[in-house]
């Protein structure tokens, strides 16, 4: 004898009821659930704080970026002038030196960091005003200048 659809439905419903009854008897451990809920709350709080921080930092970062741009721009405007002045001094100072020693770098003679003598600290333009004879006379009397002239020559020799 074949079963009718109604009988199938009854049996299916009974199966579903039993499964649901078993399902509803499943419960988690309360201490585990509390831990999970705490974790959710803490994660949520962290997320909200992070979002708020991002929001509050945005204008600060924008201002800082603007200031940096302004400083960088002013440096860019100022730096070429300074470099231009330095370049002009080097160029001027190299003229009398070139006449004495072509292989000698003129920058070393005018660098205050490497030259502690009074001549090095004095304005280079003085040598220009005095003419080529000025440095020649200074070199003959000043030992420091002799050392600075000789050192590059030694370096050039060692390369060869």
């Amino acid at each position, binding site marked *: *004898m*074949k*079963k*009718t*659809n109604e009988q*199938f439905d009854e*049996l*299916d419903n*009974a*199966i*579903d009821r*039993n*499964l*649901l*009854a*078993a*399902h509803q*008897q*499943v*419960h*988690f*451990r309360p201490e*585990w*659930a509390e*831990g*999970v*809920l705490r*974790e*959710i709350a803490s*994660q*949520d709080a962290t*997320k909200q704080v992070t979002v708020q921080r991002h929001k509050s930092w945005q204008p600060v970062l924008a201002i800082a970026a603007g200031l940096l741009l302004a400083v960088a721009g002013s440096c860019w405007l100022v730096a070429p002038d300074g470099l231009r002045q330095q370049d002009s001094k080097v160029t001027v100072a190299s003229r009398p030196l070139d006449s004495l020693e072509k292989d000698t770098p003129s920058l070393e003679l005018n660098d205050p960091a490497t030259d502690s003598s009074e001549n090095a600290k004095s304005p280079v333009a003085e040598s220009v005003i005095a003419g080529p004879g000025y440095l020649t006379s200074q070199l003959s009397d000043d030992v420091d200048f002799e050392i600075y002239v000789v050192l590059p020559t030694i370096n050039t020799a060692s390369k060869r």
Partner: protein
Amino acid sequence: MHDQLPDHLLRVYRFALHLSGDQHLAEDLAQEAMLRAVRASGSINEPLALKIWLLRVVENMWRDWCRAKLKRTVEALPETEIVRDELEPLERIAQAEQVALTVGAMRTLPERQRSVLHLIACEELSITETAEVLQITPEAVRSSLSVARARMRKMLQPPETASESGMQNEGRET
């Protein structure tokens, strides 16, 4: 959306337990699913979407866990062994004989059919929602449900009618 999450905790845990059959693993799966929901809170707005989303995450994590376990262990667990272990917690707590018999019959079903039956009978999801959770087509859900019900009926029908109906109760009459 976070206010609704605690309401889903039991549901998520039950589904994780249904899939894994292990209390500790179910706790881990459920907890991770809940935390992922917190992190993805911006993209889920509707309560129904959250429910389906959570169940799907548990389903995906369970699949990942099974794959990882199969990779880890040299001796891969046979499907029948997974099926036997999965519903042990349900079986332990089932008091009534009929309930125990039903749960026992359900555990013999293949995993897909069990999940379909669980989501429809216990979570009361629709065919479409079940398809979304399991990431299969509604037709596949209907097919799995039909086969699962037929097998359950065959196992649970009264003894006096079992011999009479034979294989005829595999499907409905048209």
